[in-house]
């Protein structure tokens, strides 16, 4: 069982979410569980799997650039009692092999931990083919899927452990790059379907996911300077989502969702679905990637284009709360 400490939180942050999972958590999984098998589609080196491959060559399969076949093979392994984890870029694993995930994980209920890395805008100059702003919308609508999106490297390791014990298939959405911001510096427990309350304020409640948790916390500090108190939740469990936390929005003047995903179909939609039909709910401000393909930019530039920096987010929240 991985326990977050200030030291390992820092190393996980340096490795990024992907590096922390495949450089640490997968090794631990293979050590603990002889049925654990890791699959990738020509993304082993980038994912930091070298140590894993050296240590567990018989429990590693690189299927080549064939994401659909990777999920099919993983399903066959799962059906025979193995515990497969399949990974590549989020855009390809959730959309190129979307129907395989629907068929094998959703319909046939084969337990695969599907890890999509580089979700959101972190691919920077690689361009729009490599960004992922649709995966939550797509994966959320598949029955029998659990979806988690960690806020930082250390919580990614903890949530990978959670995914291993979860019932049924899990999609893990990894955002950010190397040197991702730290959110959790001390040990904390995560439970599927439960949001983590990180900060409390009286005016606004912010539901954030992935790298946007850190951004939301920074925005909340900026808001404090303007006299606006903000509560911040890490809604890492995108499906099932924490209804109770969302319904607590009644106490606030404004509810906000922040995600590195299209404003449509992702966390904002999940929160709106819970709020719909409830009385006494505040206005909901949904922040995320605009529904368009962006022009070239580095990661920071792309986040700014989509108003997903702490400063721009705080500005949007301030004007919404004062309206």
């Amino acid at each position, binding site marked *: 069982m991985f326990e977050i400490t200030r030291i390992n939180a820092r190393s996980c942050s340096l490795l990024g979410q992907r590096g922390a999972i495949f450089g640490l958590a997968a090794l631990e999984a293979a050590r603990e569980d002889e049925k654990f098998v890791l699959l990738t589609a020509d993304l082993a080196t980038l994912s930091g799997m070298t140590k894993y491959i050296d240590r567990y060559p018989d429990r590693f399969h690189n299927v080549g650039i064939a994401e*659909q*076949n990777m999920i099919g093979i993983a399903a*066959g392994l799962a059906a025979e009692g193995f515990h497969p984890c399949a990974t590549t870029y989020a855009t390809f694993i959730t959309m190129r092999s979307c129907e395989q995930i629907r068929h094998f994980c959703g319909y046939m209920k084969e337990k695969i931990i599907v890890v999509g890395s580089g979700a959101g805008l972190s691919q920077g100059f690689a361009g729009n083919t490599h960004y992922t702003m649709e995966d939550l919308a797509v994966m959320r609508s598949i029955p029998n899927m659990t979806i988690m999106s960690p806020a930082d490297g250390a919580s990614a390791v903890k949530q990978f452990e959670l995914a291993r014990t979860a019932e049924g298939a899990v999609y893990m959405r990894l955002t950010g790059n190397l040197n991702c911001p730290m959110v959790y510096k001390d040990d904390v427990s995560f439970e599927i379907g439960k949001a983590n309350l990180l900060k409390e304020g009286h005016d606004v409640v912010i539901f954030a996911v992935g790298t946007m948790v850190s951004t939301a916390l920074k925005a909340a500090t900026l808001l404090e300077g303007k006299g606006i108190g903000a509560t911040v939740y890490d809604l890492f469990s995108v499906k099932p989502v924490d209804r109770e936390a969302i319904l607590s929005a009644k106490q606030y003047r404004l509810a906000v969702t922040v995600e590195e995903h299209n404003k449509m179909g992702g966390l904002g939609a999940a929160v709106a679905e819970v709020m719909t039909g409830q009385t006494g709910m505040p206005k909901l401000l949904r922040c995320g990637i605009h529904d368009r393909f962006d022009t070239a930019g580095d990661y920071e530039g792309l986040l700014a284009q989509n108003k997903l920096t702490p400063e721009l987010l705080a500005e949007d929240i301030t004007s919404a709360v004062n309206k």
Partner: protein
Amino acid sequence: MDLKQFAKELRLSALKMACDCGKNGSHVGSGLSSIEIMATLYGDVLKYDVNHPADENRDRLVVSKGHCVLAYYSALNKVGFLSDEDIASFETNGSHFHGHAMRNLKHGIEFSGGSLGMGMSFAVGLALSCKKKGLSCRVFALVGDGECDEGLIWEAAMSAAHYQLDNFMVIVDRNKLQYDGPTELVMNPLDLAKKFEAFGFDVQVADGHDCNALSKALKKMADKPMCVIADTVKGKGVSFMEGVKEWHHHTLSQEEYEQAVKEVANV
């Protein structure tokens, strides 16, 4: 077992199911093209125990061309995996028995069919697992020739050779017709045998309606993945269905059923 007689029983059962499901219709043509393949597999080739359907040492059959359920359910019924009530519930509300089979090891069904190409990839995963577990069983995938239009078939074929799965055999029901017409006109597969050979398979071509020829081909072992192209006729055994694309999915009236039964019974 008299495989020819077994095949005849399966064909009669398939026709009855097609008639009984009434106006819902069923995949008659493809059900009939795969009758001898099913008869040979369940009557002579596959290792299975209906009393221990999840036995680790069983051979696995993945019916990737999931629409051939008339033949598949009939075979599972005749060997004891499915009851008469089970197949009588085919395409009725609330039934487990859709127009495409759903995985349930108690029913002897390894894979949920219906989305073409998927089963081949899944079967590679099963074969790889059996190797990892050191089992001596075999894994078969039954695919259609139209299904070979799917890219996933070839991704899976590439990986079967890469992982040296000499416990894996793909059987292609080469009935030469797909939904919209002749395979050569819709999307020409050219020489499937050469294609599988090029993908690293040991390939045999057999008469898909000759159980003895099929038996010999399906029992052959090689030191690499194997492929049997079963040369078949869509709608086989019923004169007004053979090679007629409209019978891909069709209703079977009482009158047509009686005519079909007469033809099959008299062979």
